């Protein structure tokens, strides 16, 4: 396809030169002349001026009177390229979290929006605190009014935690594999469970197949856990984040899995 070849070349042209990207970064904020750009970027006059020339020739920027302006399309090119850069960094920064882990149940949308997790913290267990990941999530749940979660396995403390939220008049929405569905429900106090189900404070969906994903969405935080490629859950790592973007990211993923329950 011709367009895809052109795009390839366009991407290459911009990605090839950090100086051009730096110039675009500045022009995206404020139109400027060569002298101003030299001052802002600390790059030599000759390099700035030759790269400005190239950007102008390729129609990425326009000169109006004395200043260079970034073209609207270039803004999108630049921003999406930076978004890609951020995604590469996010993969590298949390390498031990992603590497050799099963990502099959992440939605394509959630992967395309992976930079929404940029303010995450990777919580890892240590030899002196082997329950760090579990305790981190446990605290989040205990301090949350409501919770949505994908639990791929049954931890003995979960029924109690769920009961706690329900007694506090909060709501609980869970997706669990069929194999633990009954067990989990029966371990929650009968009265509490029945009342919550009746008032729709408790919703539990049974997932037919295996779940390769661990996700909790509490009031303040979201946490994500993965399975290793060998099929075992990685209890030693969990990615935790508390900003709005990560919250929306987690909601999208939760709904993506929920849809599969209903199908």
């Amino acid at each position, binding site marked *: 396809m011709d*367009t*895809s070849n*052109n*795009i*390839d070349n*366009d*991407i*290459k042209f911009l*990605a*090839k030169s*950090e*100086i051009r*990207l*730096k110039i675009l970064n500045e022009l995206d904020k404020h139109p400027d002349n060569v002298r101003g750009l030299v001052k802002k*970027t*600390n*790059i*030599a006059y000759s*390099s700035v001026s030759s790269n400005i020339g190239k950007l102008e020739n390729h129609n990425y920027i326009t000169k109006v009177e004395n200043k260079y302006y970034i*073209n*609207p*399309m270039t*803004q*999108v*090119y630049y*921003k*999406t*390229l930076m*978004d*890609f*850069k951020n*995604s*590469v*960094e996010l*993969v*590298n920064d949390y*390498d031990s979290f*992603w*590497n*050799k*882990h*099963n*990502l099959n149940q992440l939605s*394509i949308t959630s*992967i*395309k*929006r*992976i*930079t929404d997790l940029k303010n995450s913290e990777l919580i890892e267990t240590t030899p002196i605190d082997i329950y760090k990941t579990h305790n981190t999530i446990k605290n989040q749940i205990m301090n949350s009014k409501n919770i949505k979660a994908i639990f791929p396995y049954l931890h003995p403390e979960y029924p109690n935690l769920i009961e706690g939220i329900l007694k506090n008049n909060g709501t609980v929405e869970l997706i669990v594999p069929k194999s633990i569905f009954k067990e989990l429900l029966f371990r929650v106090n009968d009265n509490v469970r029945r009342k919550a189900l009746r008032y729709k404070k408790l919703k539990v969906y049974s997932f037919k197949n295996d779940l390769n994903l661990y996700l909790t969405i509490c009031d303040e935080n979201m946490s994500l856990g993965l399975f290793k*490629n060998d099929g075992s859950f990685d209890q030693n790592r969990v990615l935790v984040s508390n900003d709005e*973007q990560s919250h929306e990211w987690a909601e999208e993923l939760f709904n993506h899995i929920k849809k599969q329950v209903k199908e």
Partner: protein
Amino acid sequence: MSTAEAKKELAKEFSGVKYILTSGMRSKLLLAIYDGPKNLDELRNELKKPSATILHGLKELETINLIRKVQKYYELTSNGFLLTTNMVKLIENWYAINKNKLFWNSHDLDGIPDDVLKDVYLLKDAEYVASTTSDLSNAFNTYIKLISKAKKLKIIFPIYSENHFKHLIKLLNGKKLKKLELIVSEEILNSIEENEMLKKELVNNKKVKIECVERKLKVFLTYSEDFMALTLFFKDGHYDDSQILIAKDKNAIKWAKILDNTYKK
């Protein structure tokens, strides 16, 4: 910081992206394997390059842990999968913009938040309609035709246009349109309320819900369950009614919702 240091710092910052995007071979290999695991023969046929070149590229990608070899097949590692999915997104983003170059390049995009621009790939099936010298209202007429079949409309309305209002009121008085949600700025709402007819037919209409936002609006977005339409302003601040971007696919409607949500907050 000296020039040399500044350059070095920059080079370091961009090295990861550069390594992937500036080598045609490496990016092509990732894209080929993204479709599914492939062996050397299949890759050679697809990329039409000699084995040595392909093997060299594969080796490089294996070293940085983006692909791995399982029996005779090359597949993406989890890192490779994350990265390639995002590379595909980048290419689709550029494709979507490139496809309607004239539309995107002539307008002020400040009304579209960065976070929404990053998902512009969702508009890759959109088409733009422009007015021509022989048909000055082509874009507007296309728009009116488009909204005439909707049951429910949501509009971010950045202008005061009696022509638009007239058509909307006609639709509200008809049978099809059951609900109209408008997002307007205070300035526009005041102008609407000063006009008795508009006040009666829009503001006090049960089918209409008007939300007033404080900031100045720079996009004209309309969407229903079946379509989305976007018009923008020129850089000089004037509204452009001669070019309209239209799409009827799910992704584009999803994009419209994402944009709409950023205005609601």
